[in-house]
């Protein structure tokens, strides 16, 4: 019977982190100051209270999905900022695309984007969606989401941690990610991003 669990959770302290509005050392350590890049500062008014996300897998390795799925967990609970997932693109406000963007998925991504009503924003989740990462040279891989649809925010990382995804979603609404409570030098994601950009094969 599940009632005992339910009662126990009522008296127990919540698992949910205050991050990114409050400092949380455990979660902040997993966030990366260089992970979130605002590509084009979103213009115009946007929803702030109830933001529905539609996720499309454009050819990922399922790491980004695993982290994105954890946003619903009690530890991150993105619904406290008004976020939710929606099955229908027509109800969606933010399109989150993961993976390398294969040629087979381009029409699907475009159709999903077109079905969304304005105002809408697009987030490229993971280094794969930003520039193809290690799969750039694979046959049938486009490798850049911004060559298919306009992108407002890039979230780098392989995979980006849920903390970074939260900050990236925040940036998609506000134009800027919330400040990180701590930073020490160039971050791992920054280095990784530079590595991808500088690498020529």
């Amino acid at each position: 019977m599940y009632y005992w669990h339910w009662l126990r959770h009522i008296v127990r302290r919540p698992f949910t982190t205050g991050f990114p509005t409050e400092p949380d050392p455990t979660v902040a350590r997993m966030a990366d100051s260089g992970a979130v890049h605002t590509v084009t500062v979103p213009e115009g008014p946007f929803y702030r209270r109830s933001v529905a996300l539609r996720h499309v897998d454009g050819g990922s390795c399922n790491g980004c999905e695993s982290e994105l799925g954890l946003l619903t967990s009690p530890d991150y609970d993105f619904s406290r900022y008004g976020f939710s997932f929606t099955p229908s693109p027509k109800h969606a406000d933010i399109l989150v695309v993961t993976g390398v963007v294969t040629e087979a998925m381009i029409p699907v991504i475009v159709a999903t984007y077109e079905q969304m009503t304005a105002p809408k924003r697009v987030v490229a989740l993971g280094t794969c969606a930003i520039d193809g990462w290690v799969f750039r040279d694979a046959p049938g891989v486009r490798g850049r989401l911004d060559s298919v649809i306009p992108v407002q925010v890039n979230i780098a990382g392989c995979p980006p941690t849920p903390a970074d995804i939260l900050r990236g979603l925040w940036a998609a609404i506000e134009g800027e990610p919330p400040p990180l409570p701590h930073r020490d030098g160039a971050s791992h994601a920054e280095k990784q991003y530079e590595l991808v950009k500088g690498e020529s094969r």
Partner: protein
Amino acid sequence: MADNRLAQEVFFAGTHGGEYGEWLQAWQAERAEGIETLLLDAHNQSLSVWGLDPDAHRVTQLVWRPPSPDSVWAADPAPSRVGIRETENAEPFIARTWPALPWSSGSPVVRGKGVFFYPLGPVRADVAESVEYRLAVMGDEMIHVDLRAGFKRRHVRTLVVGRYIDEAWPVVTRFTTTSNVHHTLAMALAVEKAWDISVSPTHTLLRTLFAELERIVSHLGDLAVLAVSTGLPLPQMEYLHLKELVLRLNYRLFGHRYLRDLIVPGGVQLTQWPQKADVTWALNTLATVYRQSSDIASGLLNTPSFLDRLHGAGVIPASTVAQVRPVGPVGRASGVSFDVRQALPYVAYVSHPIQPCVETSGDAYARFQVRVRELSVSLSLARILLEEWRDLDTGVQAARVLQMLKGPPLYSPGLGIVEAPRGLLVYGLYPHKDSGRIEHLAVATPSMRNWSAVPEAMANHNIMQDFPIIDASFSLSVSGWDG
């Protein structure tokens, strides 16, 4: 290492130069004797199937070389109709090697009054990988299911051809991130067999620890999805919290939430050296996860609404089990008592034997039970390994190993056979005989095989409302299929 030698002794069951059908019959005869099929591979103008004899702990290879391709193909029956279903996923691959081969893997067309088609995907559910289900429904019942994959091919196997081992590493670890430890482990075992590299006991122990931590994360995530598919968000949240707890433990101990880039040829590579205090903390965390996950599972087992939905949902028909031989928890829930950790022990499973958790009913409930029991086993084993692990030696000289991998291999191919969270995972590596660059890489992932059991299990007297439960109880990855 004992495990290195085990799989190196490949027993050639025979080379067939005649009809394709004869070779298939030889393969079927092998299976009738209880030899598990590991890997089907088309390479170098020959078709070979690798098998594992679980009793003799021996790997066999059955090769077929077409004498004159054109004449043979014209006279031959369509291969996938012969009754061995693993060929289906290899078909595109084989068809590329021999374009003259007439493949006819078309599925039956379902038509009739009152039959409705639901195309579902590739954009589906909340957060899901891209695959398309085509459900044929009559009334409430699903009468036929077709799967369309191939939306997300990243061509991992093509991409690594011509690369040195270290250059291929970043791609291999991104085949499927939720089992990246096992992908790199299988690749590392294959490399170590090809170049005959030995691994120090501490590194072997750590590799096993990584593997078990990955299995724990994977099973916790799968159980969470299964719980919510029956409309129970509370256990879902509790499982997700435990998953996040273990991911944070991974991060704190080893510097990456999914333990990426830790396994390298010749050993493990740690950028972060865990402190002793952290090990004590990790042991306590794993104990908490063990206690709480058993608590959630017993709660679910006492929830009639959960059990009602699972019992009898998505039973894999016996004929499909015989043809496909599903692997991993899916296979073990259908009575296939096969676990690589027991059948062909590798890394530290040699000294820590594992008994396969087997159920026979083949429904969603059995798959739930197998996962729950395997989760407890993995949690106990991870704690034992953490306790055993004392000081790290400097066994691996990365530079020396890397230099070696740019030279000729001693054996080819090298085989790496592991039990990934979703089941049997095999890497067959053919390095170039002088330069050591990859000439050919064959991979058999558990998802490739298990997906072919999904349509039959769904169209087996289930109604539409069972679809998410059956889908969740299989918990297969699309990236492992479409790699």
